[in-house]
């Protein structure tokens, strides 16, 4: 074996390859054509890095490392295979929290052990520790909320000040840890406990509608924490991967907040998310019901139909039936498009995943900028389980909480058919002016059942 070759060189080269594979993988994941291969590339990078780390000089405790990887990996693979596509956002939150917890655990081991050398290293360990711990407990709360385990949003007067005090206390303990580089265990323990509590109290007041933005933020934070702990351990793969995710995640968080017409500060500190804030504003007109058979005829003889799906469609598991209906229409020569609002579903892009699951090809799916001009030429807009994202009030009523949010111009279509379970208001509790327009007809019923009736009606046209 030549003299320059050693386990350390092999490890460094492998980490370099991993970093390249991660960046190329993420790049490929940003286009629908290459996305599938992107995750395979990134996965290969992870496998290389994990395997080579077993050769790390001076490692012991293999008897603990192997079972931990096995148990964690098997549980995650099992849960990841089983989770329904509708529950994907909270599952991402859960896995993300685990990453944050791991980063905090690295910080804790190094700080208890006195393994950090010098102020820079200790400071980064502490910074990564608090960020990781907040991301861990915060993500668990986000998971609990979206999964329906935590129903109420805890809010009380002076909550922001309360949280600020918690943050300050954690920072003071963190500074103490840094100041005496060999801090007592008690200070380290107190620091981590405060950070964990902070994550909980920060996340509890945030409403369910805003949770995706919060999950994305915690994703970026976990990346940052991983990057910081990478500096502590002198591990280039962790520094690069963590920092790339930190900045990519921050950008993604901003894009999501923008798509929801909220600023990040607003999401974190206001708590509109699920309040159902004052749904006033009287709406003129009446609701006009229609039968499925009539809608079937209308769709069958239309030239162009735009489907606007919302989370309600996914909850009713109607996407397969809707796609079956659309295929019938396509075979009749009707031009069918799906219009997706950025916040349709539980997080931006979630509805695309749900439609993809039903087999809808992604080139029939258009986003808001692409499709909005087309509503004027559409014979029918079919609204299924969507509400706030097609409410014209967002354009006109300055007093409405959703004023200024970009909406799909479904009201411009010649006919608007709204498939809806009952007469309730949307997620935000705001009355929908679209439902009262002259060209709107309401088709009441469970989305899946209604879709089946529509299929029969279109088939009956022959």
């Amino acid at each position: 074996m030549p003299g320059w070759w050693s386990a350390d060189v092999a490890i460094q080269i492998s980490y370099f390859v991993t970093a390249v594979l991660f960046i190329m993988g993420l790049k490929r994941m940003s286009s629908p054509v290459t996305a599938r291969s992107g995750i395979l590339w990134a996965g290969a990078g992870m496998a290389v890095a994990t395997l080579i780390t077993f050769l790390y000089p001076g490692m012991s405790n293999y008897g603990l490392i192997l079972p931990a990887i096995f148990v964690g990996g098997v549980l995650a693979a099992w849960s990841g295979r089983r989770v329904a596509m509708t529950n994907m956002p909270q599952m991402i939150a859960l896995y993300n929290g685990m990453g944050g917890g791991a980063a905090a655990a690295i910080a804790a081991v190094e700080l208890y052990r006195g393994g950090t050398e010098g102020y820079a290293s200790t400071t980064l360990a502490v910074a990564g520790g608090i960020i990781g711990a907040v991301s861990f407990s915060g993500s668990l709360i986000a998971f609990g909320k979206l999964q329906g385990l935590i129903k109420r949003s805890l809010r009380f007067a002076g909550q922001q000040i309360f949280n600020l005090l918690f943050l300050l206390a954690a920072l003071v303990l963190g500074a103490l840890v840094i100041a005496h580089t060999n801090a007592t265990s008690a200070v380290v323990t107190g620091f981590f406990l405060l950070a964990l509590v902070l994550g909980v109290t920060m996340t509890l007041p945030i409403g369910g509608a805003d949770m995706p933005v919060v999950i994305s933020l915690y994703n970026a934070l976990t990346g940052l924490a991983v990057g910081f702990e990478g500096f502590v351990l002198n591990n280039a793969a962790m520094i690069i991967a963590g920092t790339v995710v930190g900045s990519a995640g921050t950008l993604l968080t901003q894009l999501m907040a923008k798509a929801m017409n909220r600023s990040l500060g607003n999401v974190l500190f206001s708590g509109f998310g699920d309040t159902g804030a004052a749904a006033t504003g009287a709406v003129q007109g009446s609701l006009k019901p229609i039968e499925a058979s009539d809608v079937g005829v209308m769709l069958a003889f239309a030239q162009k139909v735009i489907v606007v799906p919302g989370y309600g469609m996914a909850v009713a598991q109607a996407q397969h039936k809707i796609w079956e209906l659309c295929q019938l229409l396509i075979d009749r020569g009707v031009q069918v498009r799906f219009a997706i609002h950025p916040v349709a579903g539980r997080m931006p892009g979630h509805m695309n995943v749900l439609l993809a699951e039903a087999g809808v090809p992604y080139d029939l799916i258009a986003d808001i900028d692409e499709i909005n001009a087309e509503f004027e030429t559409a014979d029918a807009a079919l609204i299924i389980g969507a509400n706030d994202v097609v409410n014209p009030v967002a354009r006109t009523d300055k007093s409405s909480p959703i004023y200024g949010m970009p909406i799909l111009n479904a009201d411009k279509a010649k006919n608007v058919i709204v498939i809806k379970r009952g007469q309730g208001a949307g997620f935000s509790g705001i009355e929908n002016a679209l439902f009262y327009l002259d060209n709107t007809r309401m088709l009441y019923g469970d989305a899946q059942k209604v879709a089946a009736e529509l299929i029969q009606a279109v088939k009956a046209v022959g």
Partner: protein
Amino acid sequence: MTGMVALYIFMLAAFTGYEVIARVPVILHTPLMSGSNFVHGIVLVGAMVALGGAQTPLEKTIGFIGVLLAAGNAVGGYVVTERMLEMFKASGPRSSPEKRTS
């Protein structure tokens, strides 16, 4: 590596992350978030090293939890991202795929 070199790596990696994600279509936001969630699963490598160097029972316990969580992040992140991306398909030669034979 020296502090300055580390700082350069940090700066360049931050720009890389930003550039890689900029201009990504909304339809891929959820899978991409999931994908980046998988990528920070690299924390597994650090958790292994931390546990590998742990000595007291307390350090070993925390290190064990760290590796357990990190493995969950990496494996879970991979599985869900792969499941989502696998479903993204373009339509066939004409606009109606499958079912055409029926």
